């Protein structure tokens, strides 16, 4: 019998296996094999993306990702037999994301809205169809996806957007908490009204 807390939020994790889900959080894990030109290209892409955060602006605006990462596996660390020693023939790209909402909606968003970004990150992977039309792209992700065997979130019912809004609320509540005692009731009521108007999209 699981002592995992009973879910508070609605079921929105659609289109993905149950093991990829913890409350509102959904895991996606994808390995892809990289063509020769991805070897020099991807590190440059990563560097540019790190240097120019504006490139991840859309990702931030979409707001449904907690954490995501792309890594290039060039060589797998050696641990002795029976592991095979030697280099990998190709580099491989590991992608994982922790996101909210439906799987299909997530991939749709990537297809239509992050079209250029998707091409930049996966264009050098074997078998990658263009991000549009969506059907072959979805199939590609499905074929290259591996289901998590165990997935964990320490705040499973909170979506990334809720977390961000809660943090924003905290920043705005701080001054009110600090000054509340000192104000006379009418001044407080006015300040509270202004505060509430300001944070209504956080609640």
């Amino acid at each position, binding site marked *: 019998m699981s002592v995992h807390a009973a879910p508070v939020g*609605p079921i929105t994790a*659609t289109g993905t296996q149950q093991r990829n889900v913890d409350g509102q959080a959904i895991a996606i894990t994808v390995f892809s094999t990289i063509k020769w030109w991805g070897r020099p290209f991807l590190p440059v892409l990563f560097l540019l993306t790190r240097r120019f955060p504006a490139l991840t602006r859309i990702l931030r605006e979409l707001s449904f990702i907690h954490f995501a990462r792309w890594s290039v596996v060039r060589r797998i660390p050696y641990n002795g037999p029976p592991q095979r020693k030697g280099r990998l023939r190709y580099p491989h790209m590991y992608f994982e994301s922790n996101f909210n909402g439906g799987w*299909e909606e997530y991939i*749709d968003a990537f297809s239509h*809205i992050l079209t250029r970004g998707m091409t930049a990150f996966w264009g050098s992977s074997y078998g990658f169809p263009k991000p549009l039309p969506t*059907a072959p792209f979805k199939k590609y992700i499905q074929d290259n996806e591996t289901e998590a065997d165990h997935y964990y979130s320490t705040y499973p019912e909170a979506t990334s957007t*809720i977390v961000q809004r809660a943090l924003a609320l905290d920043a705005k509540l701080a001054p009110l908490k600090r000054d509340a005692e000192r104000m006379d009731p009418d001044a407080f009521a006015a300040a509270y009204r202004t505060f509430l*108007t300001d944070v*209504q*999209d956080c609640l």
Partner: protein
Amino acid sequence: MASSAVRMDLGDIQGDILRAYGNDYDCTSYAFVRIECPPQQARAWFSGLIDHVTTAEPWPDQAKPLTTLNVAVTAAGLRALGVSEQGVGSFSDVFRSGMASRSELLGDVGPSDPATWEEGLGSGDAHVLLTINAQQTSDHQRALGKMKDAMDAAGGLRIVYQEDAELLPGSREHFGYADGFAQPAIEGTSDDKARGGGVPLKKGAWRALAPGEFILGYPDEDTRVDPKRRLPNAPVDPLGRSGTYMVWRKLYQDVALWRRVMRDAAKHYEGGDEHKLSAKVVGRWTNGAPLVKYPDTAPERYGSKAAGANDFRYGSDRDGMCCPVGAHIRRSNPRDALGFEGHLSFRHRMIRRGMPYGKALPEGVLSDDGVDRGLVFVSFQASISRQFEGVQVQWCNAGNIFGLGHDKDFLLGDPRGRGKMTIQGSPPFFLSPQEVFVRTRGGEYLFVPGITALAALADGTAG
């Protein structure tokens, strides 16, 4: 830009999908038939039935038929008609699973749990749905009589559930709101409705949607961007072409509860304006005028069919000060509200053809009279999971995509009775308690075959 105009084979598509039959047809009956005889016998009956099916061919005004007939089938129905497992397997997973099995996902829990549904719905007993529309009661009764006679003559057929629906005055639904007139604009059929009904583009422009979003065998929005022009997945020929998937749901509306909760909640709202608070929940005034265009008071008259009546968007009201972010119509059809040039919403449109059922609760009555009333929700879409379920699950039963936390569509209710709705404003108003205003009393996922497909089903040559 618009792709070359797609010609729809209207004679092969059933009626009331691309174009509504219209409000002349006041009475509708939905009869779910169970086939209890061998497939061959059932097909003989089916063969006689489909001769009378109404197609999408336009009628000259004077020649509007007194009644119309349309036919849909469930997965169980396909099998009962003798379609092979391979043939049935070519239909979508979700359709084959059936609506009852999707209950947790759809929020059909607690008082809406399939265990509480009307007998005959959600149990696998519904095979064929006959929808009869009539202009007058007398014709309606006659058509129903003919249908029953044909069934009796054939033998081995039983109506497991029937719902009779009737338009309310003013095309209202039971909470009092004018409903059903904002529909998707479909390329080649209703391009004239693109302003407001289509995909919102830059600079206030709109374009109609690809027909394949609603009718199988035609290019959909994905086809438009595919160099190979592939068509969407469809059931195996000849079953798929010109067909569509249908969602049928009986939604009970607790009108007295709605009125009481809104009356009580309004006490703390803007000088007790219950009318306005209710409009804020829905996103329209009772006469159908959209809040985003008329934020403070309802216009005296609102012609929903007038040119440009549906031409509104939410871009100028990002904060929801005019129409709340979580208002019912804004959730179920966000238009441009999700940003990104409509790309998060344009593939989640549905054609809706529902009808209210049950006698209206007289104005001003706040206690329940025990009468069964509500809405028969009917939608048509190429993909049940992307279009119907996507909207139900991500937009109505959840709030995250709108930045509303776990808030659900207030109008539909929360089975745990714990929800709230933020009515944006200066200051905002928090509406609660979110009681169970709407309860699912039953439903089915169905397929509406094209005319050729119906004939193939009747002949036993369909997969």
